């Protein structure tokens, strides 16, 4: 997750800076300062000024409504510049951010749901931000929605799996294991970008650091398929998995997503397949690798489809090749479908020659996919 990781590092340090700033700011007198006053209610989001100098910007938020609210500052394409959740009725908070010159939207979300009530604002002066193709902004916004939706869909699927584990229902838990992972696998580069969640939910035994307790899906996988029994500790781990996934769902919307990270994320999903799934290492006990494989490909294709209009303008030969190779890989995967899912990825059902074919098809797609970022960045 090289590319996303680095952007996440940037995002994390930005958050750290913001925390520090807001920590100080909360003590100061916000009334009458140059802060932008945001008055939130259950059906309005009033902003004291819609134009302000770029740079260090403060938002003084007051929730006059009856519902808990949250406030976001969005850059074009619904990229989150800063946000504050859980602003209770009657409370005041201050939010600070470094905002470059350009157009933004401030959104209040009463009840912490939906797209929110939005106000267009402009940060003036300073160096104008690099103009980006509006189509790319659209792609990023759409992809952010996709990522959020995947996380949301994962929660009930994971809950069913967790419930089966807690009911000691081995067969049911086995059946629900792979489907509970699909949303995560589709958006893995973004999901993994939260460095603290990934090692808790998706680590394999050989990925543990010394002293690290093994938690998450793969520990349960080993219990279900290898030990063939569910221990009391497993039931606690199931609850822990649920809590961690909910944490992911809550935070995933804040991931720093750019057209380049989307393109590289698509390539990385194929890399995941090439290094973990094709070798059968990912799901070594359940052999449900093909379910993950398919989800990785779907996630990569989603990024690609969203970026394609721009990529096709810059490099039509590339998108033609990508269309061809996505189709070829999906067709090959279709050969392994069984019921709602996929065949077991063990050496009896998917032999050495089959794996070579799958590996070749992954390479055939991943190689041109590695050029997608350049095609959208042109």
């Amino acid at each position: 997750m090289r590319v996303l990781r680095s952007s996440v590092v940037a995002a994390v340090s930005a958050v750290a800076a913001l925390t520090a700033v807001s920590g100080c700011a909360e003590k100061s007198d916000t009334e009458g300062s140059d802060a932008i006053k945001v008055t939130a209610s259950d059906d309005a989001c009033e902003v004291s000024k819609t134009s302000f100098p770029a740079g260090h910007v403060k938002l003084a938020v007051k929730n006059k409504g009856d519902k808990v609210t949250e406030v976001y500052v969005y850059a074009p394409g619904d990229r989150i510049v800063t946000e504050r959740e859980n602003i209770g009725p009657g409370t005041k908070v201050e939010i600070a951010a470094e905002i470059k010159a350009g157009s933004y939207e401030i959104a209040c979300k009463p009840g912490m749901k939906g797209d929110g009530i939005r106000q267009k604002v402009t940060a003036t002066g300073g160096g104008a931000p690099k103009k980006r193709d509006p189509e790319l902004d659209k792609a990023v916004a759409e992809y952010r929605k996709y990522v959020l939706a995947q996380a949301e869909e994962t929660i009930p699927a994971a809950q069913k799996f967790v419930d089966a584990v807690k009911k000691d229902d081995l067969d049911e838990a086995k059946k629900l294991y792979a489907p509970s992972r699909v949303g995560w696998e589709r958006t893995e580069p973004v999901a993994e970008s939260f460095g603290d969640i990934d090692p808790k939910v998706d680590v394999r035994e050989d990925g543990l650091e010394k002293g690290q307790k093994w938690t998450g899906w793969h520990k349960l996988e080993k219990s279900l398929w290898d030990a063939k029994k569910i221990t009391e500790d497993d039931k606690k781990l199931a609850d822990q998995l649920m809590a961690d996934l909910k944490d992911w769902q809550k935070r995933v919307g804040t991931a720093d997503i750019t057209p380049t990270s989307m393109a590289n994320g698509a390539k990385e999903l194929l890399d995941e397949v090439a290094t973990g799934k094709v070798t059968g290492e990912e799901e070594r006990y359940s052999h449900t690798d093909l379910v993950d494989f398919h989800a990785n490909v779907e996630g990569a294709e989603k990024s690609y489809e969203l970026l394609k209009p721009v990529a096709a303008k810059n490099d039509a030969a590339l998108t033609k090749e990508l269309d061809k190779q996505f189709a070829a890989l999906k067709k090959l995967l279709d050969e392994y479908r069984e019921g709602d899912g996929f065949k077991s990825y063990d050496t009896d059902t998917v032999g050495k020659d089959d794996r070579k074919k799958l590996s070749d098809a992954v390479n055939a797609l991943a190689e041109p996919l590695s050029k997608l970022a350049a095609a959208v960045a042109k």
Partner: protein
Amino acid sequence: MPEETTAETTAETTAKSGAAPSRRSLLGWGGAGLALGAVAAGGTAAALRTGGDAQPAALSGDAVPFHGTHQAGIATAVQDRLHFAAFDVTTGDRAALIALLKEWTAAAALMTAGHEVGEGTAGTQPEAPPDDTGEALGLKPSRLTLTFGIGPGLFEKDGKDRFGLKSRRPKALIDLPVFPGDNLDAARSGGDLCVQACADDPQVAVHAIRNLARIGMGKVAIRWSQLGFGKTSSTTPDAQTPRNMLGFKDGTRNISGTDTEALARHVWVGEKDGPEWMVDGSYLVARRIRMHIETWDRTSLKEQEDIFGRDKVEGAPQGKQRERDEPNLKAMLPDAHVRLAHPDSNGGATILRRGYSFTDGTDGLGRLDAGLFFLAYQRDVRDGFVPVQTRLSRSDALNEYIQHVGSAVFAVPPGVRDKGDWWGKALFS
């Protein structure tokens, strides 16, 4: 090599070196390269003949011309290292395959001249992976040759005429018969296409195959590949004869790369041989021959020498003093390797050998996974490898210590004539 081709290669090099950093430009490349090119193509041989034991050191980093009547890497003075790759063609699209062969040819011309592929290691967009993987950057051309071959599967596979080429398959490109004692691994055998990369620097050879494989993804996939070291035969008569992993000199009587007459008789496809697209080409047989190193090492010197029919240190045929003394076959045991392999025992069958030793570590039982990666070029497989191997597989005393575990056969088309030509052009036209 015709004058104008050489001139064109030089012009291309000059033009290119202005556009991209060149490994060759580090060398002060000049007349020496042209002389070597002439040697490699079988013309003026002076440069090599004046050499003592081995390739003159000053030339070992130089470039071998890519364009010519014959492909380089066959009669070319044997380099130290090998990376051989066999590919399956995974596309069914004839146009896509042709586009790939053109792209491969262009990349091969660049790499053999010591240049980077495409836009190189730098100079592309920062968001994109570099065109060239970069590990040969700063290295000399190292006499890299890339030799391209076509396997039977390109003409017909599983009963299907995949690219409309079935009728163009040369009669000399046979499916090899099964020889007694073969233990062939399908995962180390066959292939629709092959590229033999030879260089004096292993990193240069590996770089070349790696970049061609990368360019080919989606159209071709590597089926198997083999690294080789320690050339096991020489095509330069004055060079010291190299030794194989059994410790014996191998290839004392190999065809010399400068012996145009012998090459024309035994290696190059002639006009009467047909098909037309193969004239000036050759046929390649590749065999991975595993050696049972540990049991061989426990064999007495006398038995080892009897098995070969030559002495171990000097390489002299049995009953003779010097390596190059004319062998008396009858002085050897009837099942001696040299006696059975000699052209006189096989109706004159002669092949040009370009094999390399290999070792792929150990085999899990602690045995060295080592042997000979045998590469032989001939005018017709039916008159070359087949009669020799038929005899050897039945009777060779060496069979107790070796086993053939991989096998492939390829038609190696003539050389790429100029910039408008590409690997396989005559076949597809």
